[in-house]
């Protein structure tokens, strides 16, 4: 057993997994409340990566930033999160809210349309070429290690800030008033609105939080892997949703667990399975099918009891 390869794969799997977990959280929160599969979520993540890039360049670029690197990174995160949150609220307001009482398939098609629209708008506005974050110049190439385990600064940053965001989200949902309203709405929307909860506002804030997390994930991904382009959201969104399904859709700890699992599975498949670097996505797909067959409601999900 080659332990150094194993630890490398684990670290990159955890990094990727944190990104997927943040995307999965947005899916799972929206699904929990609206029972809607928000196909545009992956593209919000893509927009987040671009917003981070713009923030970086408005602040002077990676080679010659106008403030210290850490401040720049924090500002990039903040800008991407706020911009994506706003985008998410707008998408909800204009593409999904009018369809809240329509047949189930209508908002799904609408979501597909929004996704396609965002992708091609990004192609139109930002061009087809890759853009580079150039993390090397911004925060250097320092790595930390403990025996065989090597962690680069962006990787550490991604894992730590993802954990921080997840703790924040958990506290928000468990402790605050709006979190309570979210849980109530996802439990029973009609009953919640009868109890005086402003359901529209709760849904809008869910979209804001979920999209902001996706924006953060976009910046993290770009910090670690460097390159961003207009089509990056599609596959990441797919993986994020897979993570949400594997963890049990509607369950917030499930999304975190699922995200890490998908990231690790992808990373190990790349390293250990035959032709893993080309067929990693097929292996993740196989994992999805397997989990759905064994536990249709996901690892931490509750079986759906339908009452008539």
């Amino acid at each position, binding site marked *: 057993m080659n332990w150094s390869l194993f630890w490398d794969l684990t670290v990159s799997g955890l990094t990727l997994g944190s990104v997927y977990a943040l995307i999965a959280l947005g899916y799972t929160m929206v699904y929990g409340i609206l029972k809607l599969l928000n196909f545009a979520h992956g593209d919000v993540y893509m927009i987040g990566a671009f917003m981070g890039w713009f923030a970086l360049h408005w602040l002077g670029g990676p080679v010659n930033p106008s403030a210290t690197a850490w401040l720049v990174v924090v500002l990039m995160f903040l800008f991407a999160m706020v911009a994506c949150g706003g985008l998410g609220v707008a998408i909800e307001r204009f593409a999904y809210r*009018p369809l809240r009482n329509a047949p189930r398939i209508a908002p799904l098609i*609408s979501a597909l349309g929004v996704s396609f629209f965002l992708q091609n708008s990004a192609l139109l506005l930002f061009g087809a070429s890759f853009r580079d974050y150039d993390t090397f110049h911004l925060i250097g190439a320092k790595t930390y290690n403990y025996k065989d385990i090597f962690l680069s600064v962006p990787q550490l940053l991604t894992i730590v800030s993802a954990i921080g965001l997840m703790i924040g989200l958990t506290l928000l949902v468990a402790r605050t008033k709006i979190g309570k309203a979210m849980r109530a709405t996802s439990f029973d929307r009609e009953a919640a609105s009868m109890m005086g909860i402003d359901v529209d506002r709760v849904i809008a804030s869910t979209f804001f939080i979920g999209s902001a997390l996706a924006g953060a994930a976009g910046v993290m991904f770009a910090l670690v892997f460097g390159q961003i382009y207009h089509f990056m959201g599609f596959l990441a969104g797919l993986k994020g949703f897979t993570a949400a399904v594997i963890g049990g859709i509607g369950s917030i700890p499930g999304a975190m667990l699922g995200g890490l699992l998908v990231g690790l599975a992808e990373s190990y498949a790349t390293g250990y399975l035959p032709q893993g670097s*080309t067929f990693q996505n097929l292996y993740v797909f196989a994992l999805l099918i397997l989990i759905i067959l064994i536990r249709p409601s996901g690892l931490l999900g509750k079986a759906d009891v339908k009452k008539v």
Partner: protein
Amino acid sequence: MADELTPQVPPDQPRIGVDEWVASVEGKRERYRGPVGWLRRGWDTAPAGARLLAFVIPAAIFPLVTTEGNLFRYGLITLLYALLGLGLNVTVGFAGLLDLGYIAFFGFGAYTYGYVASVHTGHHWPAVPAILLAIAVAALIGFIVGFPSRRLVGDYLAIVTLFFGQAFVVFVNNGDRINFWPFNRTDLTGGANGLDNIDPLKLFGWTVNTTKEYYWFTLGAFLLVIILLYLVSESRTGRAWKALREDPLAAEVMSMPVNRLKLMAFVFGAAIAGFAGAIYGSVQTGAFPGDFDVGLLITIYAIVILGGAGSLAGVIVGALVVNGVPELLRDPNQAEWVFYTALVLLVLTKVRPWQKLVTVVGGTLALGFALVAIADAWFPRWTAGEPNTGKLAHWVSHWMLLPSHATQIANWAYALTIALILVLTLLRGWWRTIVMIPTIYVGAFAWENLLVEQTVGATRFLLLGALLVVLMNARPQGLFGTARVEIV
């Protein structure tokens, strides 16, 4: 006295004990007057054969009056899209299953046909067994994918199939160097370069070669499938699918085998896609991974949804619109005409009463000429850009600012257009009319300076995406679909 006892309900309030929807069906049908109403009534009462002829006769005349290139772009491709739409219509329209891996079955058809009949692999099967094999393979794969997914409620099915579609693209992209058991160095798909040199169709000694011959063949295939689907949709199974679509729970209570019906619809759609794929492979004389991506999926969905899910005539109309309009957009000169015609039609039909219409048209024109005059006098850079080619673009250049440094400004104008359109949907009354003027102008500005240059790529696809959203909001049942009746 009796009159006083019955409560006086205003006519627009629901009456108790009367089903409003059923009671107002006749009134709804009568509401269409003039030529539109006449057409609609004629369409509703015409027998199915006559409706089919209304499509077949123009389709049969079309190749006699047009050029080879136009026949391919507007005729053959539309037919292929319509054929694909028919298959998707079974899964989505009849049975209500959201199948997002549909294009993969189309791909399996094309690749199967290519595998057994091309120079690339060295096999040269005649068309009939090759097409049958392609259908069988697509149906079998549909069965394999559908079997574990059939228990899933709509959204899970969507994600599994979407992933499946993506997996297909990965697979064909790398299928030339699969290197583990049981495929040791077999070249299944030709990899990123695709399967090239696929044979033309050979039917009983007749080789289909020219575009015209392919057109006839595809038209025949299309008629075969649409007649088959008409019969299926009227059959016991077809009715069961529709019941399933409307309410799976109620269907199950009526002792319909829900899982088996879902699987059947899924496989049926996949088989039709495989058939279309085999034809497509031979038309293109090749199967390439890039052809089976999300773009095509959205296009076919737009066709089915625009026409109205579940309607066969809707698929034809949807294919004509969704293929025809972007093809027209390919040429910037034609694209100008399409854009301004659509804009004028939209304003003329949607803005009422005439006072508002006059305000919008007059205001927009005045705004444009005023801005151009101001820019000419003080900011010459804003009118220094080259107008696009074509007569219409030349006229427009008197009204529209064409800055020489357009890129950045046009990007912001595009974003501003979206924002203004969204604001527009929130406003009512005269505010809406007033905001409409800058919206149109900024939109046209973004069009002239940015969108028209990208009509081959991004523009047509983003318009397609926007169309889906708008359509879902405005008319979820599509052009030919019947509105869903919600009786609570």
